[in-house]
């Protein structure tokens, strides 16, 4: 037997908590998506992996474009 009685108020609070959680998760996803869109500017992202790659070097890229 449960030690607390389930009441409509519990359901309402639970609904509020779940609703807020969903909104926060969606907000985080939107901000993450927005960050990716802003940083990539429409092109693919490349992370720095501690080794030299010419494609990450702005001087090299400028030289290639000449």
């Amino acid at each position, binding site marked *: 037997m449960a030690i*607390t*009685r389930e009441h409509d108020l519990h359901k309402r*609070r639970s*609904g*509020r908590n779940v*609703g807020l959680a969903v909104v926060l998760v969606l907000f985080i996803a*939107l901000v993450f*998506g*927005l960050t990716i869109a*802003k940083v990539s500017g429409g092109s693919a992202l490349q992370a720095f992996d501690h080794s030299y790659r010419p494609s990450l070097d702005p001087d090299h890229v400028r030289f290639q474009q000449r």
Partner: protein
Amino acid sequence: MTDLRTDISYATPGEGSFGDYVALLKPRVMSLVVFTALVGLLVAPGSLHPVEALAAIIFIALGAGASGALNMWWDADIDQVMKRTSGRPIPAGKVAPGEALGLGVALSGLSVIMLWLATNALAGFLLAFTIFFYAVIYSMWLKRATPQNIVIGGAAGAFPPLIGWVAVTGSISLEACLMFLLIFMWTPPHFWALALFMKSDYHKANVPMLTVTHGRKVTRAHILVYTIALIPFALAAGLTSIGGPVYLALALVLNLMFLQGAVAIWRRDEAQAEGDGYATEKRVFRFSLAYLFLHFVAILAEAALANLPAYAGFAAQFKILELF
């Protein structure tokens, strides 16, 4: 053993459901805001990354919702008296006024900053101005002070397509202004038609609607005058880059029908209106909703048709205001 007393009423403030907090944001108004802002965003020259566009629409809608919450906080006393609004979360005792204020202020700040970050500073500023205009200029000042409340306050509802346009272009243009003016000029006849058959509500709440301060005869005349004043702006949009033959043809029919409705309202007296339960007023009010929706659908249709080279060449002849 329980942490809860079950012998008290739970309609006490602060125990509203998630839906009650959503209701504070006026979701029906938000849907209109989303639609008009989306049209402004889609027909503007240039483009946004889809995620940026989605974020822009969400934050414009959130800003509109925030101003709705602030309006409900300020107008709780009026809402309690009026039948149409007595079921809103604050008068119904589901949400405390302070919570509505907190939600409104928090969402205002969040939506403005996020729209600025997602798009540009001008769009963020315009959203901030819209919230200020609706919450302070309209709700706190004009609504209780002048029968022209609807005329000037209508600007708040007219901003979304302009903000959508600015989110893409970063600047204000003739097309954006005409979309603004279309909603701005449409608002008075739309709301006065509503006020004609909801008069007792506004009267009870002591809101100086035109029907209360100047009577119904004057209101009927105002509906006709403002409908006539609306027509040039509705048609002018068809002569700019967002218009074209499809928009112009539809706008011509819609404006003639709206004018016909406004004339019918003007020619009626109270005895006739009460006799048929305000049938004409209700019909014109419902039509005014379709009127605005279809104008924006036509603007969207023109943008879609512009991708067809044959149509674009033909439509260009109509866009004589495009240079401005």
